[in-house]
């Protein structure tokens, strides 16, 4: 807080229901990604690397794993003296009963007392389920340079896809003139990334009003931003260039993993100047056996491979037995592919075992197969 006087709030209440069985017991921000990470490692590491000390994480649905995971602020170095990651689920208050968050804005509204305790000048609102690397300190510098009331990070998307996003129409200096949620005929290709910097005093006032508004959805995109524009506030767009992905489906989660083994991968997890921090799991290093063949793969500690791995991502402690084949697939933490089994175009969920000689997925399937239950092999 001392350095930049900005506090971050991460919205991590998403159910992620299009990820099916992956989010049965785990909130979407806690879904595993990239061999050793969870999705929420990205905004949290970005915060740490941007010099932000205090982060509130707004959780909601089935968040015991997420809550425990982010509470260990040491993972991102967010455990220095005045630093911390604070889990903020809905709570009972003297003047309000226990209730779920009604929308993204309501999640912040219900935690005004938390933010007030730090009295920050600025508040950074983030989403817990996007994969990207961004220096929020630079965004704050631009926010200040433009003397803006709010700054919204935007990314250029292909014109034809623009109607799937919230689109910002700006003037030449990047001032936002108009915001359209999923417009049929988009006027620009600048999509909101759901990353906002607000002056806290202003946002606080907006939220207090919004809470009382019976017609509001209590949502940043639907209510707060339009209201700010209606009030003729200065909203600035911050153009982001680089990798950014919202992994909403099994296919897009699989794709995001596969991006790590393409040669033009903008995400670059191997950059020492902007590391992504995560849980420090105790495992052996990777063991590759005498029969191993691993090509075009992203493999992490604890994996043991004595079979064939091709164009695949292996998460912590995944095992591939002799003669087994893993092709175009993602093996999540603890997956075991036994001898002779074949896994192709599949995403195998945590700790699932693929039995001996079993065959999972197929080379020509339209969608990636999610394997969430044990597959019995030849006994």
């Amino acid at each position, binding site marked *: 807080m001392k350095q930049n006087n900005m506090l971050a709030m991460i919205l991590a209440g998403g159910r992620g229901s299009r990820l099916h069985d992956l989010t049965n017991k785990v909130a979407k921000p806690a879904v595993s990604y990239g061999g050793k990470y969870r999705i929420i490692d990205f905004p949290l590491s970005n915060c740490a690397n941007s010099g932000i000390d205090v982060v509130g994480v707004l959780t909601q649905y089935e968040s015991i794993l997420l809550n425990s995971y982010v509470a260990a602020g040491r993972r991102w170095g967010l455990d220095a003296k005045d630093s911390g990651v604070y889990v903020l689920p809905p709570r009972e208050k003297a003047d309000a009963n226990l209730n779920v968050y009604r929308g993204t804005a309501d999640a912040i509204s219900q935690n005004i007392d938390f933010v007030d305790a730090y009295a920050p000048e600025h508040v950074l609102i983030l989403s817990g389920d996007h994969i990207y690397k961004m220096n929020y300190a630079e965004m704050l510098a631009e926010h200040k340079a433009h003397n803006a009331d709010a700054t919204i990070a935007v990314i250029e998307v292909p014109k034809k896809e623009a109607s799937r996003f919230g689109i910002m129409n700006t003037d030449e200096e990047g001032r936002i003139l108009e915001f359209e949620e999923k417009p049929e005929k988009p006027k620009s290709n600048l999509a909101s990334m759901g990353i906002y910097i607000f002056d806290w005093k202003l946002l606080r006032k907006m939220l207090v009003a919004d809470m009382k508004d019976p017609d509001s959805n209590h949502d940043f995109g639907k209510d707060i931003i339009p209201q700010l524009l209606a009030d003729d506030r200065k909203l600035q767009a911050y153009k982001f260039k680089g990798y950014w992905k919202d992994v909403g489906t099994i296919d897009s989660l699989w794709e995001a993993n596969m991006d790590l083994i393409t040669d033009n991968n903008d995400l670059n*997890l191997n950059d020492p100047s902007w590391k*992504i921090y995560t849980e420090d799991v105790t495992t052996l290093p990777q063991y590759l056996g005498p029969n*191993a063949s691993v090509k075009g793969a992203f493999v992490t500690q604890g994996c043991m491979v004595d079979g064939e791995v091709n164009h695949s991502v292996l998460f912590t402690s995944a095992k591939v037995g002799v003669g087994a084949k893993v092709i175009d697939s993602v093996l999540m933490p603890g997956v075991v592919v036994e001898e002779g089994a074949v896994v192709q175009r599949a995403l195998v969920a945590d700790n699932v075992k693929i039995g001996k000689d079993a065959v999972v997925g197929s080379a020509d399937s339209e969608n990636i197969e999610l394997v969430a239950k044990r597959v019995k092999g030849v006994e």
Partner: protein
Amino acid sequence: MYSSFGIITPANRHVWVEGLQDYRPIGSFSFLGRYRVIDFPISNMSNSGIDRIQVYIRRKAVSLIDHLGSGRHYNINSKRGKLQPLFSENTGEHDIYNTDIAAYIENMEEIEKLTHTYVVIAPSYMVYAMDYDSLIHTHAESGADITLLYHSVDNARESFLNCNTLNLNKQKGVLSVEKNQGTAKNRNIFMDTYVMKRELFIELITKANKLSSMYTMSDILNDLCCELDIRGVAHRGFFASITDFKSYYDANMALEDIKMSQNLFSEDWPIYTKTNDSCPTRYFETAEVTSSVVSNGCMIKGKVENSIIGRGCVIKEGAVVKNCILLTDVLIGEGVHVENQVVDRRAKLTQVKEIVADPETPGYIKRGDTI
């Protein structure tokens, strides 16, 4: 659980690992790519419920201090416990005065401050897994004054030449502590690991220091074998003593075999280390890696066989790495063939295309060298 504190000792002045030790103490050596040697004694203590640990350091402290950090990654409660580095400043590296006893005497105030009943002393240069709480239990139940841990080997003629051996009677009483002269195949190699009461420990070091400024702990024990009840307890499982270059190479290579590694690592006895937050390793289309142990953060396009690959190594197309130990951030250039080598941190092997040593006398490539 017994009330005990731990002491982790540096190697004595007779031990020298060519090359590597110029840059850091043995405890700080990279081991099996992912670990440092000192991770083993510290994890053993932490897993045994010992949370007050003194680590004696003689020189080149930077990498070791950095690795020890706050001790939290070893699962030590930072309020109740403490992983404390202590220094020997009074004696030079190769001084005859440079002994474990001298280091204890120099830091006596820190030892006397503690109130634990027992002390467990373990070396920073040996690799093994051991439950010290059960060792203390064996010690306490036996009524011995001092308990020493040993490992029976059948290759003492050519190996463990820098180690002490225990000469035991039928009841496992220690008759003498002697240098391994390489004169016999079968020996009980002393694992430089002691259990005794704290009071006796203080008494012994005071006595040893009075007898001779050159005395070591094993010297005084050898003197007192008749007076005191000193017993040996046999250790089983993987054991390596890293006391010369070859033993460092061999210990790593032995664990390249997953079956052998199961004698050291087990689910209920985690070996902790400090994370470097490296990303996973990327194997490219042209990679061919077999029978190897690989750390995170590598980029592999070449061929790797029977090797230990440290964190952040880059192995370019057409390169061949065979029977090697690569430490952190090593670069093997295109078409370079390297065999039977220990390659120290940040070395770059790009110009000379063939760097092959004899398997019996593996080579060493210096830290940061470009070859």
